[in-house]
């Protein structure tokens, strides 16, 4: 038996077309005999990495399943487009595999459809055998300190969305007039923001960063970025590639407080390799620090500091500084806890970016949601107390991890779904209408979906505009413009 399964390409469809009524028998699919005319139909809510990887695995594992991906924006790819930094184009290569999935004959993309508003999850469950929630995390974790709403304070999610062209962050109006910026949080998103704030314009102008962001950064007076964390050097959440990029960033110099690294060199020998290499690089950067003077732009970590209050400027309602509570560490390693000492220190700054995590929101009353963990309660991707509902990606396990983490997670959910089809846990014996039931509802409600080939028109136009500007693409920034190009 050929152990190498073949992914069905368009070109091979005539050779490998399988009629729904006679599913090709194989060891895995021995239980999948369907009644004539019924193909399993699965709806995926969310067109980002989780949605696409779940669809990809379903299509590969089952010869007849039809997968429809619904996405709120007119355009696909989610955080790959709106989260990955503009100077990390290679990370966006996954778009190629997603494109192949979308172009699969048993897959279709429906953009500009807001599930929960334009169509309910209950209506989707009537139209499809299974619904997979893969809609990610569109909210923020709030700081919960006074002054959080002052002008000059942004969540990293919104700041990143702004420079990446997310339509809902179009009007952010980043205030980059202050010399010092404080970023709260020490994960990779925090480092991305620091790097974009301090990168030479020559580098940024050749990326797909938006034009308004480029102009704002060109006029920016930010020269010093502090990346602040509650705990110590051994607890930073960022990874070495991103740290290396900061250390090597042209025109900048690290500025750290050597006292904050006491005892760290001694702890190195007991660390596992990834943490050890990361810490060694950090120490090297800290030791090479110069206090004041030198390079025009500086960046550095500050440890054992938690935000207590954002301080307003005396005459206007914008931020002028931040009061940081000083912590001490209890315990060690990944489980160490930050305990307030009661002491505080004030840092003068007019730009504060809170990078403490994204957060999922509930989408529809029909979908269980755990407000404490901010995820959909599930076991291995099967939504608890809700037959026929599954979830994958950040909304399933929380908003951490890279694309590959979401990929594995999505494959796991797809496997649960396939297994449920095999065991009969998921009933696929009755024919379902799929998108044919949803389309008339959308039409009645005045929603015009954007197909994948409509997206390709937007894509082509963006690349064309980008070429004129020496960039890979010039992103469209608002939904109306996208819809116009899509339906041209």
């Amino acid at each position: 038996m050929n152990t190498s399964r073949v992914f069905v390409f368009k070109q091979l469809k005539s050779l490998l077309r399988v009629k729904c009524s006679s599913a090709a028998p194989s060891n895995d699919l021995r239980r999948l005999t369907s009644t004539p005319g019924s193909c399993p139909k699965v709806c995926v809510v969310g067109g980002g990495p989780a949605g696409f990887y779940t669809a990809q695995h379903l299509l590969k594992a089952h010869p007849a399943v039809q997968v429809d991906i619904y996405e709120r924006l007119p355009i696909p790819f989610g955080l790959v487009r709106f989260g990955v930094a503009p100077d990390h184009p290679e990370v966006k290569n996954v778009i190629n595999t997603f494109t192949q999935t979308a172009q699969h004959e048993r897959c279709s993309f429906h953009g500009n459809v807001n599930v929960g508003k334009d169509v309910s999850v209950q209506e989707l469950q009537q139209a499809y055998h299974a619904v997979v929630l893969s809609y990610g995390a569109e909210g923020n974790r709030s700081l919960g300190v006074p002054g959080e709403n002052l002008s000059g304070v942004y969540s990293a999610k919104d700041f990143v969305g702004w420079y990446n062209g997310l339509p809902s962050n179009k009007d952010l109006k980043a205030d980059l007039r202050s010399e010092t910026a404080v970023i709260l949080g020490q994960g990779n998103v925090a480092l991305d923001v620091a790097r974009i704030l301090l990168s030479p314009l020559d580098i940024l102008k050749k990326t797909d960063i938006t034009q308004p962001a480029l102009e704002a950064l060109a006029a920016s007076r930010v020269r010093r970025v502090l990346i602040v964390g509650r705990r110590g050097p051994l607890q930073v959440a960022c990874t070495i590639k991103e740290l290396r990029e900061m250390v090597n960033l042209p025109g900048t110099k690290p500025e750290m407080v050597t006292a904050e690294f006491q005892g760290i060199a001694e702890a190195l020998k007991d660390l596992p390799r990834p943490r050890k290499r990361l810490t060694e690089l950090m120490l090297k950067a800290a030791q090479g620090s110069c206090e004041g003077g030198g390079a025009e732009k500086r960046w550095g970590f500050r440890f054992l500091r938690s935000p207590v209050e954002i301080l307003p400027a005396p005459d206007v309602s914008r931020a002028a500084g931040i009061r940081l509570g000083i912590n001490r560490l209890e315990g060690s390693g990944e489980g160490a806890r930050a305990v307030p000492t009661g002491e505080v220190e004030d840092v003068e700054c007019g730009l504060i970016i809170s990078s403490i995590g994204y957060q999922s929101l509930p989408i529809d009353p029909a979908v269980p949601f755990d407000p404490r963990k901010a995820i959909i309660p599930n076991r291995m991707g099967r939504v608890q107390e809700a037959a026929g509902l599954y979830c994958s990606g950040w909304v399933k396990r929380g908003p951490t991890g890279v694309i590959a983490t979401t990929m594995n997670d999505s494959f796991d959910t797809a496997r649960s779904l396939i297994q449920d089809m095999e065991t009969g846990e998921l009933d696929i014996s009755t024919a379902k209408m799929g998108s044919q039931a949803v389309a008339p509802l959308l039409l009645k409600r005045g929603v015009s979906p954007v197909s994948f080939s409509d997206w390709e028109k937007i894509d082509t136009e963006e690349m064309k505009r980008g070429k004129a500007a020496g960039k890979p693409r010039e992103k469209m920034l608002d939904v109306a413009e996208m819809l116009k190009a899509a339906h041209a």
Partner: protein
Amino acid sequence: MASCVRLRSVLPSLMSSVAISQSSEVQPCFGHPWMPGSQHYRAFSTHPILCSSSLGNSSAADKVSVHFVNQDGVKITTAVTEGESLLDVVIKKNLDISGFGACEGTLACSTCHLILDENIYEKLDPMVDEEMDMLDLAYGITKTSRLGCQVCVQKWMDGMTVQVPQEIKDMRNAVGSAGSQ
């Protein structure tokens, strides 16, 4: 005779990103063919390892036999052209390894993580920092782990076995098992 050319990235990774976005159209592409028939053939730009397959007809090129063991423990044996990277092979031969090579060989992920035989691992050139940076993020790394996009197949590797890390096995693997919920 094919030779495996290795280029250590001399530029900081950020400058590498500049090269990528500058020259996305004009790039020599060594040994990174995308899937046949795909409309999304991408020319790849800077990556520390460039594996050059022998130029000219592939039937004359030396074929090396490599065994891949996938995430389900299934063994797939294939003949590889000397000089290709292990990522190239998986893509070209469309081997059944799920989610392999997400970043397409640009050292921006760890999905081409493979576990090599010890005697093979020891004979390879040491990893550049950029490879180790990404490998450190991979699940289930071992003392003989490498990223497949950075390993060029050579004649002396004939008959080697490379293994995809086994995923965490859970109750779900037994179809219909009582513990599956």
